[in-house]
Every structure is written in C-alpha cells, then in structure tokens.
C-alpha cells in the first residue's frame, strides 16, 4: 500500500506550486492588461490553429512510430557502441533548435547532401520547407526522445519477467503480448502526449522552415504580432488560443500517464535471454542503422562546417560562454529543486501545476516580464536572470515528468519499509528517495541544463551587446552574414550542450 505524503511534502508542493503560478500568471495578466480589448479570431488565426494541431499530431505519431522498433532493438540487443547510441538519442532534443535546423538544412536542404545525391542520380530534388519540413525537424527532435521514454519503459519491466519468459520459451509474439504490450499501453500515450505538447509550442523550427499563410504556427504568429506589428491585442488572442490547446493537451497527458505499483525488481543487471535471432536480428540492426544515420548526419554536417569557422570566432565568445554556463547550471539546479518540491505531495494537482508552463511560450513569458520590468529598471540589465527563470519554467514539465513518477515508484515499492523504519523528512530523502530517483534526477538536470544552454527566445528580446549568451552571439553572427563564425559558435554551443547533459546523465547512473 502506497504511503501518502506527509505535511512537509505538501508544504513543499504548495510553495513550489505558488512560485510557478506567480511566475506564470503575473506576466500573462500584464499582457492582458496592456492588450486592452479582445477581439474574435479571424481566418488567419484559425489557419494558424489548424496548422499547429495538424503538424503536432503528425509529428507525435511519426516520432513514436519510428521510435518503437528502435527502442525495442536497443532494449533487447547488446552490441558494441550501444551505450553511445543511447547517449546519442538524447542529442537532437538537447541540440539548440536553430543549430539543429542548420544541420538539417545541410543534409536535406536545397544544396544539402541528399539533394546532391539525388541530383547525381538524375532524380528530382526534395524541398524541406513547409509542412513536411516542419514535421521532419520535429521528428528529428522528438523521435529520439520517444526512444528514450520507451526504452525506460522497457527497462522498467523487471528482468525477472524476461527471465520467466525465457524459461517458458515464449515466442516473440507472446513476449510482446504478455510483457511489452502492457508496458507500451502505459508508456506510449504519455510519449504521444508529451511530444504533441512539445510540437504545439515549438517556434524556431516554424520560424526557419515554415512561415507564410499555409505553414504558420500560433507561436510564430505571436512572435510576428510582437515583432513586426507590436499588435498586443492580436498577440494576446493568439496566446489565449495557444494556451487553450496546450492546457487540453496537458490534461489529456495527465489522464493518460498512469502508474502501477507492480514490478519490484531487485535492480539486477538486465539480461535478455529471449531476444530472437534470424531475420528479426537483421531487422533490428537495420532500424538501428537507419535511426543512427538520421540522427548523426546533420550533426556531422554541423561539425564539418563548424571546425572551419572556429578561427573566425570573435573574442566576445568567452563572456558569452561564461554567461551560457551560468544560466545553464543555475537552470539545472532550480529546475530539479522545483521538480522535487512539486513531486513531494505525490498528487495530481502539483504535477498539473508543473505542466502549466507548457501552456505558455518563452516569448509570451518574456514579453510579460519585459512589460513588468520596463517601468522599474532597464530590462536588458536583468537579461540573464530572466532567461534563467523562463528556462526553468520551460524545462520544469520535462524534468517533473521524469522525477514525479520516479518518486511515486520509489514510494510504491519501498515506502512501507521506509515508514516502518521511521524514515521521514530528510532521512527518507537521503536513504530512499534520492538513491531511487538518481537516474531521473540526472536525466532531468541534464535536460534542463542543455535546454537553457541553447535557448534563443527570451535572450533575443532582452539581450544587450554586453549581455549575450552563446546562442544569441551565434544568431547575431548569422544576421551579420558571418556564416563561418556562426558555424564555429554553433559547434562550441553544440559541444557545451552535449557536455553538460552528458555529465548530469552520467552522475545519475551508468546505464544511460
């Protein structure tokens, strides 16, 4: 029987929840106050809504579909480089979006590798702008995330059950039906919902690969309303529509992600005796190879372009690196602390609060903070703290969705024993929760650190020449047509993002 949260847990949850609410509601309120009278959505707004939903549905479905065979192959095969592969699946999600889109363009773009190949073969060229470009980029970012989520699901199936399956000599179909399908029923809806929500709020991809009346997301429309027209009324209306669909997505996701208390494996090293050989082995290998190419080629293209650009980097790169590292580590720390606080009550309400940031885009939040700060202080002076706050809020839902289930599982599996030994408060955290949640905390901190490292939303609104982060420097170099230097900065950013994620994920546990 699972334990209920004590008063300390509820207090921590309330404090964290209030902080999140205040940080979300205040900027939104200011925007609505400044926006004045509302108006009804017109055809352009409905078109943006339709496109946003359609691309998110396609992106989520394709990402999870592609991830299924890859995660299964990773779960049941042991091969040299497997760990590296699993680490690499974390890469695209952690890649600064603008940097990754540069890589995708280098491979799939008009003068990219794929079109070069097609041209050499005398075939027509492919175009990556519009709906299929947006979906391609989203699948590139989210298929690996889905793979990791599914892989964690596979790893959560106790090794003892696979051992039992091997003892009974169950054929692959039965292993799937009896062990894997029940797990997938729990994990897949959550993965779909998470990716759907991510794609609803993605903006840089649409900015670069979309645009125009037929491929504009709500996010992009908000940005355009702010930056081109400074039409706060239209921006508020679009923000409202955006928040509405994402709140719905979050509610659906909460309903879909259920936890069961079964499965207390003793943490034995996972060995699979049931992995079938023959053509299934070849198919697994093919899936892994395809996924590997899809994920690594854009990175390779980036690295090749970037190495040449390193020599062109200006001296401003150093303070930019310092600022980015500071924001990144601060964001990892605050996101994990906030996630722990919101996990402590082990209740739907606190998890729901932690998902609320998904309903707001970084740009909407940033504009809100800008409007709050503007009368008091030059907002540019607080560029880095505001970036940290917004990035913490943006990383919170992902981090919380890792930490909260891990917390609940630790309690479901071992809470009774901990209670009978009088482990409460700090002692419970130290001896039961933190050790059992180590993997989730490491992964969550890594995500927060890398996401904030690559963020180019708020800092673009707030940044001044003397306060710039690495992504902003890269963006400015691009804008100044210093493409080589921008590629160099992108490479530095890429290496840093990877490194902070790798360190945190590593600290969390050795099995990636």
């Amino acid at each position: 029987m699972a334990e209920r949260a004590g008063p300390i847990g509820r207090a921590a949850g309330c404090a964290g929840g209030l902080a999140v609410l205040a940080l979300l509601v205040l900027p939104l309120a200011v925007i609505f106050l400044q926006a004045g009278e509302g108006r009804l959505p017109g055809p352009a707004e409905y078109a943006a809504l339709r496109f946003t939903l359609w691309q998110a549905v396609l992106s989520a479905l394709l990402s999870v579909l592609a991830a299924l065979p890859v995660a299964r192959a990773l779960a049941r095969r042991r091969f040299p480089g497997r760990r590296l592969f699993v680490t690499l699946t974390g890469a695209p999600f952690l890649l600064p979006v603008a940097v990754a889109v540069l890589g995708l363009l280098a491979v799939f773009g008009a003068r990219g590798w794929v079109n070069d190949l097609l041209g050499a073969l005398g075939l027509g060229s492919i175009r990556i702008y519009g709906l299929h470009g947006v979906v391609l980029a989203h699948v590139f970012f989210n298929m690996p995330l889905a793979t990791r989520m599914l892989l964690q699901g596979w790893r959560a199936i106790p090794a003892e059950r696979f051992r039992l399956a091997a003892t009974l000599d169950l054929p692959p179909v039965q292993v799937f039906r009896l062990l894997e399908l029940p797990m997938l029923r729990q994990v897949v809806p959550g993965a779909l919902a998470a990716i759907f929500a991510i794609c609803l709020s993605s903006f840089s991809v649409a900015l670069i690969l979309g645009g125009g009346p037929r491929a504009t997301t709500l996010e992009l429309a908000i940005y355009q309303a702010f930056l081109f027209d400074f039409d706060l009324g239209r921006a508020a209306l679009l923000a409202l529509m955006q928040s509405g669909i994402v709140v719905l997505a979050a509610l659906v996701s909460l309903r879909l992600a259920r936890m069961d208390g079964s499965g207390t494996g003793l943490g034995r090293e996972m060995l699979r005796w049931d992995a079938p050989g023959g053509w299934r082995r070849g198919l697994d290998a093919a899936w892994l190879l395809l996924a590997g190419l899809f994920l690594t080629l854009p990175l390779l293209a980036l690295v090749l372009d970037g190495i040449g650009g390193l020599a062109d980097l200006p001296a401003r790169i150093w303070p930019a690196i310092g600022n980015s590292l500071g924001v990144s580590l601060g964001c990892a720390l605050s996101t994990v602390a906030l996630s722990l606080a919101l996990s402590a009550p082990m209740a739907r309400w606190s998890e729901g609060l932690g998902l609320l940031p998904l309903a707001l885009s970084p740009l909407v939040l940033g504009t809100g903070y800008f409007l709050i700060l503007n009368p008091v202080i030059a907002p540019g002076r607080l560029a880095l703290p505001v970036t940290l706050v917004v990035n913490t809020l943006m990383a919170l839902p992902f981090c919380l969705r890792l930490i909260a289930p891990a917390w609940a599982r630790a309690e479901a599996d071992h809470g009774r024993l901990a209670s009978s030994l009088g482990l409460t408060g700090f002692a419970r955290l130290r001896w039961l929760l933190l050790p059992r949640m180590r993997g989730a905390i490491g992964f969550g901190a890594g995500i927060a650190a890398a996401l904030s490292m690559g963020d180019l939303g708020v800092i673009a609104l707030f940044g001044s020449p003397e306060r710039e982060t690495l992504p902003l420097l890269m963006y400015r170099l691009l804008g100044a047509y210093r493409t080589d230097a921008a590629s160099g900065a992108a490479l530095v950013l890429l290496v840093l993002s990877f490194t902070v994620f790798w360190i945190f994920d590593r600290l969390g546990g050795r099995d990636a």
Partner: protein
Amino acid sequence: MLELVNLTLEQGDFRLEADFSLPEGTSAALIGPSGAGKSTLLAGIAGFLPPRRGRVQWRGEDLTRLAPGKRPVAMLFQDGNLFPHLDVSRNVALGISPRGRLSAQDQARVAQALERVGLAGYGARTPAELSGGQQSRAALARILVQDRPLMLLDEPFAALGPALRAEMLRLVAELRAETGATLLMVTHDPRDAERIAEQIVLVAEGRAAPPAPMRALLDDPPPALRAYLGGEGDFD
C-alpha cells in the same frame, strides 16, 4: 500487553473486527483462509491502515495516532524487506537510526547482529547478491538491532523451502527468546505455527478471534478452523 480495543479495519468492501489483548512476551500465530484479513490486521497494528473505529494500545498507551516508525513495532513484510540500493550493513544500520550517523558502538552492533544471524562478512554486499535465505537473515539482523518489543511477521519466509523456512523460524524463536519480544506472525502452515507460537489467533469471517492456546485449539478446532485445516487437523 497489546490491546486491540473494538478495532474495525476497512479496505474497500472488506471489513475486519478485532477486540482482544495479548500478554507481553507471548507469541501468537495468525491463522485463517486466504483473504481473511491476516495481513490487514498486521497492517492495522503496524500503523499502515488507520482504523475505521477503535484503537490499538501497547502497555496502556494508545498507538492509533502514531506513524508506523514511531510505534514499538518491528515488522517483516512478505517481500521488499531490504532496500535494493543500499548494502546489507546500511540496511541493518537503518534499524538503529534513520538519520544515518553511526557511532563506533552502532557499527559494532551492526556487525554483531550480522554475525548473530550468520552473515558475518556480508555487510558490503547488496541484497541482489544474496540468496533468498540470506536476505531473510539480513532482515532479521535489522529486526535485532531495532530492538522493538513487538515483532510482526507477515509471512516473510513464504518463498523459502520448508527446511530453510524451519531454520528461519528457529532463528526467530531464538531471537525472540533473547529479546523477550512479543510476536505476532501470519502463517498458512499449522506446523510453522506450532514451531514458534504458543497461541493462535483465528482470523475468519471478518473477525479476528481472541488468542487461544495452540494445543487446545488444534485438538478441538472450532468449525471455521476445522474447515480451514481440512485433513490436516490431526496433530500429535
């Protein structure tokens, strides 16, 4: 004296009543059909299930509002008696202090307890590296250092073979003799009960009966016990 005063426990539709007392130092076996509420009763005494009505008293003190860890109770569950992420020494040490600070004296106590249950030198291993019997021994070592006057066993040895189970029960009996603890244990096997308990608490039909002397009850079982024992009723 352990007193269950008009105790009513409810879990969903299930309801169990108990109203009896057990003198200190006694050992009693809870016997009854599957699903009759034996584990529920232990959960109620240990504090995992707040009673619907009534109270649990120990030496005249009302335990009902105390958290499980604050009760004078050491408990072994059917499974999951060790934290898999901590080594055996640490698992045992948590029985002395949940804070984790161990004096040299405490460390000596842990080593002593491990030696007493036959696990000398196993302190640095994790539970996954132990056999089932060794895991039971490690859990018993923790019970030993916990030094609580009330021991609750919820079939912790059910997964062990008959010989090993008998050995564990013998160890429990020895530890109980050394500490003078009061013991309540769930069992399915009247032979196990006979090995260790003086009293039987029959749990059946939504009620936990007052403890009755083992011999008398087995010699002349009431209808509910007769039905449960089936052909195994005759002991000599």
